[in-house]
Every structure is written in C-alpha cells, then in structure tokens.
C-alpha cells in the first residue's frame, strides 16, 4: 500500500467514526439554526425582525440580556480571579473542600438559582428576616425580584464557572517565569503587570466568553425572578407559548443567538 492510499484509508476510517456525530449535528443543530436564519428572510420573518429591532419591548429585552450578561461576566471574572489564583497556586489544608464548595452551584439549573435568590432576598427571605431581627427594620424584602436580584442570581451561577475556568488556566502557569522575573529585579506589582496579566489575558478572555454565553442563554433564573425587567430568553418563551407568535420568537431567537455567538467568537479569537 503506498502512502497516498494509506492516508486515504486513514481518512476514511476517520470519516466513518465521525459520521454519527456529523449526522446528528446536521439534523439537530445546523439544520434548525439554518432554518432560523432562513426564517428571517421570509416576508413575515422580515417584518418580525424589523419589529424586534425597532425600539420597544423586544429590543429592550435584547439590550437587557446583553447588558446583564456583560456586567455579570465582567464582575464574575474580577471577583473570581483572586480565589482562582489561591486555589491554583496556594497549598493549604481544606483547599479541596473549598474548591468543592465553590463548584457545587455549577450543577444547579437556573430555576434553582432563582429559587435560592428568593430564599435569600424574597418577600420573606432570609436576609430581610435576619435584618429585621437584628435591627428591627425590614430591609431588602423582595429585592430578589428587582434588576439587582436578577444580577446577583446571574453572578451566583457565573462565579463558580469563572473560578473553575480561571483556576485551570492559572494552574498551567509556569512558576519559573515568575522566578525569572524576580531574578531580573521585578517587584510584585511589576511582575503582575508585565508577566501575570499578559499571560493570563487569553484565559481571562475565554472565561469572559464562557460566563457571557452562559448568562445570555440563562432562562430559568429570569423565569423565576423577572417581574418588570425582562430578558430575551423570557420574551422568546412568552411569544412562543403565550402568543403563539413564532415569527417574533424566531427573530428574537436569531438575534440572541447571533449576538452570543459573535461575542463568543470575538473573545475566543487568538491574538497573534
């Protein structure tokens, strides 16, 4: 067997093994998403898309989703960086237990997070009750249902994600580079600025992408907590099941998916 036919045979094995995945992705991901895009170019779809993009409830929902997800992503990365560094680089008793505790919320579906926020900051939540008992004044009751509550809930499920993603990046960080910078006379801040941050930049960006995408898709949290403040996934659901308005739901879903994918791609692009 000569080289070319050998490599052809190898490719063939590869195709054969990947074929089920290819079929599945075509049927369950590519085709539906293509249909979603094509739907926007039908007459009714086009009208719906313009309706979604015009000022009003739908556009507000999209902008809300974008703003809330971006804020939660940035805040979670900022807050997670320290603990992630500690988990990755320090050795101390109880570290594994801490990591376990922090990663616990990773498995919670959005509704559960929403519920936990109600437990904490609902109309008879733990925090207002505790404050009432301590100070005699009931504060923050029902805060769970405000924008702030929604933001905190997003933060709650993004923080573990950010800590875990950053930790695995920090763990791959070569310790010797830090030592090398020290021998060349760089102090702690100089090392953070000139070595730590530039090297962490890809990890920070990909963590932003992870947390942002997860927030954009989050539906359960808003379903439980959202009152006046609406987000895109919630609008899609309402249009689809409540008003049976598939064109608007489709246009919204398209815009939501496009925004998320674009931001994800922008953040994941490797800078040369």
């Amino acid at each position, binding site marked *: 067997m000569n080289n070319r036919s050998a490599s052809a045979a190898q490719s063939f094995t590869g195709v054969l093994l990947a074929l089920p995945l290819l079929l599945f992705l075509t049927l369950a991901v590519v085709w539906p998403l293509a249909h979603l895009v094509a739907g926007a170019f039908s007459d009714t779809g086009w009208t719906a898309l313009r309706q979604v993009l015009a000022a009003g409830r739908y556009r507000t929902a999209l902008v809300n989703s974008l703003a809330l997800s971006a804020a939660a992503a940035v805040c979670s990365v900022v807050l997670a960086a320290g603990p992630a560094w500690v988990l990755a680089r320090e050795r101390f008793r109880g570290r594994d237990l801490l990591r376990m505790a922090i990663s616990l919320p990773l498995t919670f579906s959005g509704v559960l997070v929403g519920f936990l926020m109600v437990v904490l900051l609902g109309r008879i939540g733990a925090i207002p009750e505790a404050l009432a008992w301590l100070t005699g004044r009931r504060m923050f009751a029902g805060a769970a249902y405000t924008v702030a509550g929604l933001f905190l809930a997003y933060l709650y499920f993004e923080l573990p994600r950010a800590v875990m993603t950053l930790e695995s990046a920090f763990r791959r960080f*070569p310790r*010797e*580079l830090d*030592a*090398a*910078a*020290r*021998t*060349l*006379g*760089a*102090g702690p801040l*100089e090392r953070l600025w*000139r*070595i730590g941050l*530039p*090297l962490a930049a890809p990890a920070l960006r990909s963590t932003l992408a992870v947390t942002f995408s997860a927030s954009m898709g989050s539906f359960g949290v808003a379903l439980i907590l959202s009152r006046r403040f609406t987000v895109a996934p919630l609008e899609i659901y309402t249009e689809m099941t409540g008003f049976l308005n598939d064109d608007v739901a489709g246009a919204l879903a398209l815009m939501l998916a496009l925004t998320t994918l674009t931001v994800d791609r922008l953040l994941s692009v490797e800078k040369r």
Partner: protein
Amino acid sequence: MKVHVEDVSFAYGREPVVSGVSLDLPEGGITVVIGPSGSGKSTLLQLLCGLLHPAQGKILFDDEDVTGVPTERRDVGVVFQSYALFPHLSVRENIAFGLKTGRRRFSMRSSRRRPSRRHLEERVWDAAALLSLERLLDRRPAQLSGGEQQRVALARAVAPRPSLLLLDEPLSALDARLRRAVRTELAALLAKLGTTTFYVTHDQEEAMLLADHLVVLDHGRVVQAGPPLDLYRRPATPFVASFLGEANLVEIEARPAIATPGRVETPFGSLSLPEAKSRGWLLVRPEDFTDDPCGAMATVLDARGMGPHDRVVLQLEGGTELLAHFPPETAPEPGSKVRVGVRQRRPHFLNGGE
C-alpha cells in the same frame, strides 16, 4: 563580587535538602557545583539568588548579609534549566526586561541607575552581539531552536551586568553534540565576562572544562571543594573518585615497606603513598596504567579500540576487575596475560574501608 556562604541549611518540610553548607565563591571566578540528582545543588542555587530562604545560616555578598534580601534586590542574573523565557515577549523584550525593572531604583548598589532609552537599546544590542543573537531580536521564544533559546536566556541574564551570575544546568536541555559545542563557547564567554559565576551541573566533563573552583555535593553536604584537577587526582572519598571520571579502587592494607618509609606495597609493586595510614583504597585512573614487567599479572577480559585510546578490561589474580586505557592500537588480545604497573606519582590512597 565575592560570595560567602556560611553553614546554610534548608529543608522541604521535614526532608533536609541542604545541610550545613559553607563555601566561598572566588571573586570573578567560576564555581561549579556538581552532584547527582537530588544532592541539593539546584536548591543551593535558589538559596543564593533568594528564591528560597535558608532555615539556618548566612549568605554574604561582599561582606554584606543578604540572607533576608528578596531576589529582586540581589543584583543576580539566573539562567534556568528550562530557560524560562517569557513567551509573550520578543527576544529583544526578553533581553531588555532586566534593564527596565525597578531593581535599579532600590538596588543595594547605588551606582546602578535605570538606563536611558538609547543606552538601553545599546545594552540590549551588546548582550545580543555577545551571543550572536542580532538577527533573532524580533522573534518570539517559540520560534527559536533549543540552542538559540539557551543563548537568549544567557543574554537576558547578563544584560543587566549582574554582580553574580547563576546557571542551573544550562546545557542539560540540549542534545549531546550541541552541548559539546556550546560548552566551549560558554567557557570562553564566561571568561570574557569575568563575573563571579555559580554553575550547577551533573556533567563531569562540563565541570572540568568550566570550573576554577569545583564543589562536589552529595545528600545536601559539601563532600569536597577545590581546584578541579586536585579533586580528580586526590578525591577525598570513593564517591568523589567515581563521580569525577572513571576510577579503579583497589582495596589494600597499607603496610609500610620496611626499607623505604612513605612507600606502600601494592599489587603493582611498592608505591610512594605518604598519605596511606591504614586499610583503604588505592585509586588508579584508567589512563595511569603502564606496561611494566615487574607489575601485577592480569588477564585481559575484553579489549576494544575507542579511537583516542583502547579500552581494556583486566582481571587481577585475586579476581579484582580493572578498567585501563591503553594507547591506541596497543591493546593485547582478550584471554592473554599482561603485567601492568602504575605511573609513579599518580596513584592516590584513600584511607578508610572496613
């Protein structure tokens, strides 16, 4: 700068790594520390540059106690075993790194100031020229070969003109052929720089070639220190003898020859061994054997031409095996009998043994 290490100890947890080490690095000289892996030589290097701090003992730079001074203020240059080049910086930026750091501002040596921009470029260029890196200045470390990375690491360490240069097995990542070539260049370069240098290696040839002062380390302790050839010829222990080159250690009882004080009867005849006191080992290097009609009778077990010399395995009558180097193409046939003696003045006696 001269460096004085006084009774320094360090342990990882309960495991002692360096125990009571004292040494002096001569000013402007190259001190090579050699030892098997796990002997504590890299740890010693990290103690010198301040990446680790001793549990006990003192480190003096020019009579100034630097034991508690952090690395960034110690005015050292380090070449790491893995080179530790900054992957996000070009070769130029890697070399310039140490010229731009805050060390200049709070250095122990007040004469050093942060160089001006033009001056900085000159310094980078000088360091690059010293190591023939001029044409690689805009590359990233990932785009360099192993040998080139090694040179960048060296250029980066010497560019700030440190008072003490520390090298941690800098050639161990290179393949054997390249290592031999770089070794010679490195020796010339270090001689030219004239900086006090501390060099860690486990390679005996490297040590012999580079060292002004050789320190043998084992289990965290200094076993012997001195000029390299002295250590080779007059090792203090069988460990040093066999760690530095190939050694035949023939165990004998040192009975003084009656007629001539200072001479000892050996299988190779009576030899002048004034240091011999009791039972111990006679050290004979493979190159020290001679053809001697009055020497010991030995059977040739194996003989092989190596090029520069013939490698011959001999067996004495008592069963002791010896390794001998004969001049090229003079090896006797395996199975034949020869009489071998030992070059006068060369053999060395190590007291001790059971």
